[in-house]
């Protein structure tokens, strides 16, 4: 009996030791990086609801790093990416950011994820290193040493809505969105623009996030209210679901739809039968007919072959982040918060969607209005260098 217990205990100790090794090991095993490499933590959606962007985000970031490195890197140092999953809860991602800063000693963090996660990361980064946030978001954040590359509602709506009114030959709007900050903020701003245009909002419906939503009710109401335009701020599966239901009820012939977050992947889900008269307003589409974009997509195809993940505005922003960081540091010659912030304001940089300018830590950029044709976007209008109207100092 005693021997068997001893055996078990020894096994236990051994198992515990092995476990400790396995956890401690990464720091040792991880290939030693070039001593002077500049490490950048990149937060991408490997899991969670946005995980469908994950592969494209990684690809865009890797291409961004390679492009910058080919031009001599940042501050003369080669750039090295350390990816971390941003698809988990804000606490979990914030913890990854702490690890990136403390263990991996990254000198910048780029991220493409939701705003709740961003606030978690901001809390731990505390402005110590530049944090570049790239996706579409609602604006109204002026945390220090954080730089926003994504489209804010003002950019998506200001020029686009008049164009939509022109296309629809009507000024009545029906607003449908998910019940959370981005959709509500976007719609609040939309209502201001609609009023300026002399239009009216006939009704607005908000659907809970993460609930099993069905859209037959709203579609029936739309059918009855007969607005000229349906402005959508739905995300993910709900976006697909609504648009399919809308088309099933035969409304797509008569009523135009403008979505504020409709990119290539979601359009594939909506499918060709449901995409008639559906418009999207964003700062980038993968099929943009610009030489910069052709080059970007060409490089990706060269790097990843036919299996290159589908790019969209959400993922492409991470490529922009590298270009932006390189442009700023050329001016600032330093990553110190004060120098970086001073140099960032007004810096202009070239991206696959054209030239962008950082103003008040938000980015003035080209906005494209695209019509869906099947499961592809056709750009019908381009609004150059649309300002963000954000005023962070």
């Amino acid at each position, binding site marked *: 009996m005693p021997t068997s217990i001893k055996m078990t205990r020894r096994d236990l100790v051994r198992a515990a030791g092995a476990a400790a090794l396995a956890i401690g090991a990464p720091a040792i095993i991880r290939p030693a990086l070039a001593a002077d490499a500049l490490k950048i933590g990149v937060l991408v959606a490997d899991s969670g*609801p946005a*995980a*469908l962007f*994950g*592969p494209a985000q990684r690809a865009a970031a890797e291409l961004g790093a390679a492009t910058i490195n080919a031009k001599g890197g940042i501050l003369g140092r080669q750039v090295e990416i350390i990816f971390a999953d941003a698809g988990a809860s804000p606490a979990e991602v914030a913890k990854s950011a702490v690890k990136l800063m403390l263990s991996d000693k990254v000198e910048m963090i780029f991220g493409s994820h939701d705003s709740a996660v961003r606030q978690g990361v901001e809390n731990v980064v505390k402005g110590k290193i530049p944090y570049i946030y790239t996706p579409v978001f609602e604006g109204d954040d002026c945390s220090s040493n954080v730089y926003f590359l994504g489209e804010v509602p003002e950019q998506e709506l200001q020029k686009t809505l008049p164009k939509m009114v022109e296309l629809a030959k009507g000024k009545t709007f029906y607003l449908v969105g998910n*019940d959370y900050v981005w959709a509500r903020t976007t719609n609040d701003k939309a209502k201001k623009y609609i009023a300026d245009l002399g239009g009216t909002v006939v009704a607005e*419906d*908000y*659907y*809970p996030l993460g*609930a*099993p*939503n*069905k859209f*037959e*009710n*709203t579609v*029936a*109401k739309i*059918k*009855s209210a007969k607005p000229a335009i349906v402005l959508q701020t739905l995300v*993910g*599966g709900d976006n*697909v*679901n609504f648009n*399919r*239901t809308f088309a*099933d*009820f*035969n409304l797509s012939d008569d009523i135009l739809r403008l979505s504020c977050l409709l990119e290539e*992947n*979601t359009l*594939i*889900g*909506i*499918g*060709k*039968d449901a995409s008639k008269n559906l418009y999207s307003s964003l700062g980038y589409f993968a099929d943009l007919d610009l030489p910069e974009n052709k080059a970007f997509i060409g490089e990706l195809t060269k790097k990843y072959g036919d299996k290159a993940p*589908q790019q969209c505005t959400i993922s492409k922003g991470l490529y922009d982040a590298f270009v932006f960081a390189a442009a700023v540091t050329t001016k600032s010659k330093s990553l110190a918060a004060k120098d970086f912030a001073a140099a960032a304001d007004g810096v202009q940089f070239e991206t696959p969607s054209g030239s962008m300018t950082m103003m008040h830590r938000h980015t003035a950029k080209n906005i494209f209005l695209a019509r869906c044709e099947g*499961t592809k976007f056709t750009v019908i209008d381009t609004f150059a260098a649309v300002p963000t109207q954000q005023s962070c100092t």
Partner: protein
Amino acid sequence: MEALLFTQGLNVIYEALILAILVLGLAVVMGLLNVLNIAHGEFIMIGAYAAYVVQRAGLPYLLAIPAAALVCGAIGLVVERCLIRPLHYEPFETLLATWGLGLLLRKCVELAFGRGYRSVEIPIRGSLSLFGESYPAYRLALMAVAALVLASLFIWYRRAPTGARIRAMVGNPVLAEAVGIRTRELARNTFITGTAFAGVAGVMVAPLTPVEPFMGLTFIVNSFFALVVGGMGTVAGLFAGATIIGGLQSVLSAAVSPTSAYIAMLLISILFLWQRPRGLFPRP
């Protein structure tokens, strides 16, 4: 206004029936066998992917039904053998195991099909005119099929002894074996039937929703509540639960707002769970 009311009325019936179809598989597995299969939504998801594959291969859509039943039944067979039976069909143990199973199935489908949305085309296009109001034909067809399935189930369940034998087996497995019920086979077949039903439900809803690996998660919560509110193990309970959860949410969503409708549905579920923990039409 009347036209809107009429359409909304149809929407309410549609949501109740579609929920009943989605719950059916769980009603068998949880209502009869007491297995809290939290991976039920994943079986629906796999059924939807089966529909996608069949459609992509250019085969007739109806073929997706046997395909999904076969695939989900086969997975059900393996799951029953490796997970459910070793856990002796214990409700909470199987709840935990199927939580892991759900995660596993989602990731496996992601491995095979990727994370992106797949779109399944509507097999019956266009609309039908009902009393001057048009309504999508596929939805009407679904409603008809759902009503038919529920009605025939109701009749079968009353007449065939299988239902009573399953109840007998779950209530008293030792005695069931003693009176000649081959309990192991009956439990296995019942479980497989439940997963196959879930697969077929997946085929039916695939053209209506985004098909992606995580779609199952949106079905599971409503399914659980519908089942518990209605009462487990009876067709009347299944129907009542789907009507209350699906129908009520639809009515409130139209009348007030979708978010309040959702919260109201949760609060009503709580009220039922508290005051009528065995549901409206419980198994006697």
